[in-house]
């Protein structure tokens, strides 16, 4: 009986260990750019999107990997599976342990990530943000895709074109705290007040980067408010959701839909007429630029003003000592949507 008790224990330990080893070893192969040397090896750039699993951030990952290969640096690109700041904060702490040379993050909440980023800074890691900023004192540089004003203005202009410059609008955003979305909303409201006083935003609803939720929100809102002139979907998830909702309700001709979207997702809606035009920038280029900036931070040769040479993007402008600008926003229509493969 004593011997069998030991046998039982050994088998138990062995089984559990086998499980862990299998799971871990399967997973280790997944990150091709993760080397084993850690300390004195190639520079490591740790990049975090708001969440993984949506086409927009998959596109930026492609650009980031391209830049990492060009520069010969190691790239770790990972994020939480939901757009939650608390999960990002935890991952940043773990990135610190991974001895990254630079950490750059697209924030779900500017203040929630500040303590973790500050700790990274204290550990000697170059800190940066991209796509959505963290608190200014928590990072050294911010890679912005386009100025908030330019994005807000373009969105409103595109909508005004389709609605004759008046009406009440629904905005479906991602989360009510994401700093870039908050900034765009502010720019949109200001632009409406100054250029199109007959346009106003009636309601802002968070779609939580969930397609079905954005769809349901739009549908229900349009049913409850049939006089709505148009819907802004200001994230790459809420725009297709809103467009699908308008299509299913058969309101393509009555309700204008525009916002920020990824061409590959939006093709069916542009073809069906639910969406005439929408706005974006190139997320592949954004990821590419973010890695270049992080690399320059590590090497210590990021300029404080003027322009910065970023690989195949050429000269990129610095808006301020701590802000790098990608480009003016792009407007996609039926005519040019076929030219892009993201």
């Amino acid at each position: 009986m004593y011997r069998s008790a030991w046998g039982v224990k050994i088998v138990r330990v062995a089984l559990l260990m086998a499980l862990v080893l299998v799971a871990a070893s399967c997973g280790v192969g997944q990150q091709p750019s993760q080397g084993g040397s850690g300390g004195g090896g190639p520079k490591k750039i740790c990049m975090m999107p708001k969440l993984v699993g949506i086409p927009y951030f998959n596109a930026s990952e492609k650009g980031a990997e391209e830049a990492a290969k060009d520069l010969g640096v190691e790239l770790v690109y990972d994020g939480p599976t939901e757009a939650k700041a608390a999960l990002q904060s935890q991952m940043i702490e773990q990135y610190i342990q991974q001895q990254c040379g630079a950490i750059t993050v697209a924030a779900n909440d500017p203040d929630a990530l500040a303590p973790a980023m500050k700790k990274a800074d204290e550990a000697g890691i170059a800190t940066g943000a991209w796509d959505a900023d963290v608190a200014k004192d928590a990072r050294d540089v911010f890679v912005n895709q386009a100025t908030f004003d330019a994005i807000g203005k373009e969105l409103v202009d595109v909508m005004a074109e389709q609605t004759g410059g008046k009406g009440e609008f629904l905005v479906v955003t991602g989360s009510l705290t994401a700093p870039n979305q908050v900034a765009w909303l502010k720019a949109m409201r200001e632009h409406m007040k100054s250029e199109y006083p007959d346009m106003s935003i009636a309601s802002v609803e968070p779609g939580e980067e969930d397609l079905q939720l954005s769809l349901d929100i739009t549908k229900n809102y349009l049913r409850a408010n049939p006089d709505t002139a148009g819907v802004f979907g200001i994230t790459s998830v809420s725009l297709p959701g809103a467009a699908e909702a308008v299509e299913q309700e058969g309101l393509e001709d009555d309700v204008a839909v525009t916002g920020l979207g990824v061409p590959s997702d939006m093709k069916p809606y542009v073809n069906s007429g639910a969406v005439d035009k929408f706005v974006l920038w190139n997320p592949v280029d954004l990821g590419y630029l973010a890695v270049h900036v992080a690399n320059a931070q590590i090497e210590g040769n990021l300029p404080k003003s003027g322009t910065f040479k970023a690989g195949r993007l050429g000269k990129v402008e610095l808006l301020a000592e701590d802000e790098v600008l990608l480009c003016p926003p792009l407007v996609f229509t039926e005519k040019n949507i076929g030219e892009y493969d993201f």
Partner: protein
Amino acid sequence: MSAATAVLRRFKFSREVVLLGVLIVLMFVMSLLSPLFFTVGNLLNTSRFFVEVGLMALGMTLIIITGGIDLSVGSNVALVSVAVGFTYAAGLPLPLAIVFGLVVGLAAGLFNGLFITLLDLHPLVVTLGTFALFQGLAYGLSNAQAVSDFPDWFAYFGQAYFLNVVPGQLFIFILAVVVVWLILSRTRFGRYVYAIGNNEEAAHFSGVPVRRVKLALYSGIGLLVGMAAVIYTSRVYTARGDSGLGLELDVISAVVLGGASIYGGSGTIGGTVLGVLIIATLRNGLVLAGVPSTWQVFVLGVLLLVAVFLNEFFRRREE
């Protein structure tokens, strides 16, 4: 009964030795997968994460020993976090806001307990309902916003270091472990807990105040949740309605991994603590080894299944 309890005692002891062995082997494996794992800085950093799960796991152990379960702990964390942050933002002095948060956690647990005991309802469905209710309240009351401008001293709970190296909350955790262990193994209350788990009807007829014990357990975990939530909010320095989501999986996994039978009647604090350590080590090690977060979700789910399966399989063989 003494021969049986002697066997029982050796049975419990041997399980903990096995878990310790698992933990050591696991740490060895993790350090192979990443040389960064076995540094003092990393190990202590990991301990920050597991204090929150650990505090709740202590309370969950007692509940699972009685054959119950509490699925609402994660959502309760969110509720307390919002309670602390938003009352503070509304003008309440922060110390009072923290106390209010602890009270909210306790009250939420008490709410669970009352529903379960007064109405004789299954804890599974009650806590499933409160899982949604607390989360919804946290999200709705905070209006999907967040509170971040706490005074500097608030970071003390979640981010402080003693002697520049040891995380502050580790002491709170060790204290809680000792207290709960004493309660479970050295007091009459602890024996009531085991009695209820072994056979609730028999315990009732032997004079065990079943209802009051259960009420105390669910309220108790509510208080522990409150503490964990305050530490958590201090660590991320933000009060949000989506704090603590998914923590119930880690908590229940830790308790089950630690050897507690999900049917009730057995389980120890030592086992739970080891279970918490194993899960924290696994999570941390996987990240350091470069395993993407998408894999971690999968591994944890599989781990829970395997752990329970092994527990029950070997338990039946030993009977």
